[in-house]
């Protein structure tokens, strides 16, 4: 994607029918560090790679609890992500106050998508530069949604966003059919393996990743570092076994002229 005369304003269409500013916002999501989400019928797991700005600073916060039954993982401009998490928390609290019941995840996600869409249709605004993986549980079961800066949202069985997420997606595509019946521990292990794929050979330790889970009988919570490290150790042990295949990093060979907004 190269600079052109139609990309200055979010309210300018290109002759090919694309809004370049929105697409650039989605590029920002791809620059962020990876986040993956996967769900079974009763649980949803989220995992993110936390990069620290330097060895002196703390890690970026990429997983936010929105309510007891909903949490988000973000990739992209974390400031935008923080602001949107606050909005999501507000919506959940307001709904809870009036109805004393948790806000259904599908409705929360639509409100978020509508908020993002507004920013793609005002000349004095810019699209949010963050993609959100919304994991939640409501009466109709466990849900995982991906909210895009374009204002689109989709429900997924499993998804990965951020840099080198294609590797994680490949792994998830191979395994997703089994997820429905997975136990929460297996879900978390799968999330950790997916995260490992995005690291490209770097060692996975519990200090550089965050894992959270929500499900039936389990309010949304971030899992503590020690448990994660134990699970990582179990995964490494399993890797020695012959049938575990390593995925080969597939170059991100997307057609640069295709509009990514439908994806």
């Amino acid at each position, binding site marked *: 994607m190269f600079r052109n005369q139609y990309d200055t304003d979010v309210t300018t269409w290109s002759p090919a029918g694309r809004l370049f500013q929105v697409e650039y916002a989605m590029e920002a999501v791809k620059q962020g560090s990876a986040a993956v989400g996967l769900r079974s019928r009763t649980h949803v797991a989220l995992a993110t790679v936390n990069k620290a700005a330097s060895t002196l600073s703390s890690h970026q916060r990429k997983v936010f609890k929105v309510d007891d039954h909903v949490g988000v993982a973000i990739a992209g401009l974390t400031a935008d992500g923080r602001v949107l998490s606050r909005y999501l928390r507000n919506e959940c609290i307001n709904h809870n106050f*009036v109805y*004393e*019941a948790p806000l259904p995840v599908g*409705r929360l996600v639509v409100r978020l998508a509508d908020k993002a869409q507004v920013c793609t249709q005002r000349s004095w605004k810019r699209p949010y530069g963050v993609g959100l993986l919304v994991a939640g549980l409501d*009466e*109709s079961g466990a849900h995982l949604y991906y909210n895009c800066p374009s204002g689109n949202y989709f429900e997924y069985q499993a998804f990965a966003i951020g840099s080198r997420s294609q590797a994680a997606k490949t792994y998830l595509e191979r395994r997703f059919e089994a997820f429905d019946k997975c136990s929460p521990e297996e879900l978390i292990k799968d999330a950790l393996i997916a995260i490992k794929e995005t690291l490209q050979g770097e060692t996975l330790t519990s200090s550089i990743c965050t894992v959270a889970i929500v499900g039936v009988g389990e309010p949304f919570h971030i899992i503590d570092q020690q448990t994660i490290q134990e699970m990582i150790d179990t995964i490494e042990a399993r890797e020695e076994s012959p049938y575990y295949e390593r995925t080969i990093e597939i170059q991100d060979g997307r057609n640069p002229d295709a509009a990514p907004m439908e994806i």
Partner: protein
Amino acid sequence: MFGSLETTLDLLPSFSSPFLGLELLPWGRRGRPIGVPTQVVMRALGQFLHGCLGWAPPWVNHEQEMYFSTWIDWETSCRYPYVTGTSVIGIKYKDGVLMAADTGGSYGSTLRYKSVERIKPIGKHSLLGASGEISDFQELLRYLDELILYDNMWDDGNSLGPKEIHNYLTRVMYNRRNKFNPLWNSLVLGGVKNGQKYLGVVTMLGAHFEDKHVATGFGNHLAVPILRSEWKEDMNFEEAVKLLEKCLLVLLYRDRSSINKFQIAKITEEGATIYPAYSLKTFWGFSAFQNPAKCAEGTW
């Protein structure tokens, strides 16, 4: 002369009084109370100047000032109910919730309307019964109509259950009471969702609670004692209706605003059913009622 007059700020009332909107001895800025005559003079001066010159100096009281976000209008706020319904009784039974109410609308002591349906289905999962002002009940039904409509418009498999509607009604009633403009109703909200039975009450003050058996109005005094001693867990439909009829009969005999025309409504997992109105058999043949003139010659 003007130096000694109090200004508008001094006439700031802490509450308005019915007499010409003047305050009974408000405190002036000089620390002295301002009597009514002074207030009358100030008000008159303000109106005179406003009429003559088209304006009046700001320290003369010529326009009512808004010091509060809502200026309470005592004539229309905290209204009195006009057409009222009497008690509603609700009980949980094996398959769901059963509610009963008579179909009378009283206009003071006159039993003016005899076919007022005071129990209505709300959405797929609930029933709402109301006692008190009928027009306020109808207003509530309009709010709930809109609520259910928007809920259905989502078309996403989620629906508002009885607990949500109960809480919503609590918020509405409480907020209205805080504005000194209550909806003059006692509401009974019953429903079943996903096998969970729910029965709750919201009063006109916004007080709310849940229970296995509830009643409003006179039912609190006459029906609740019966329910407390005879209600049991998981009654079948016939037993539950018999219990309700027992309470309704007592109410019919003893509540002067009840009429002998009742409606029973049930809500189960399958949905709501409001049965057609019917009457109960009453017995007036007590010996004490026979020959009333026996001990009092000339009575009727």
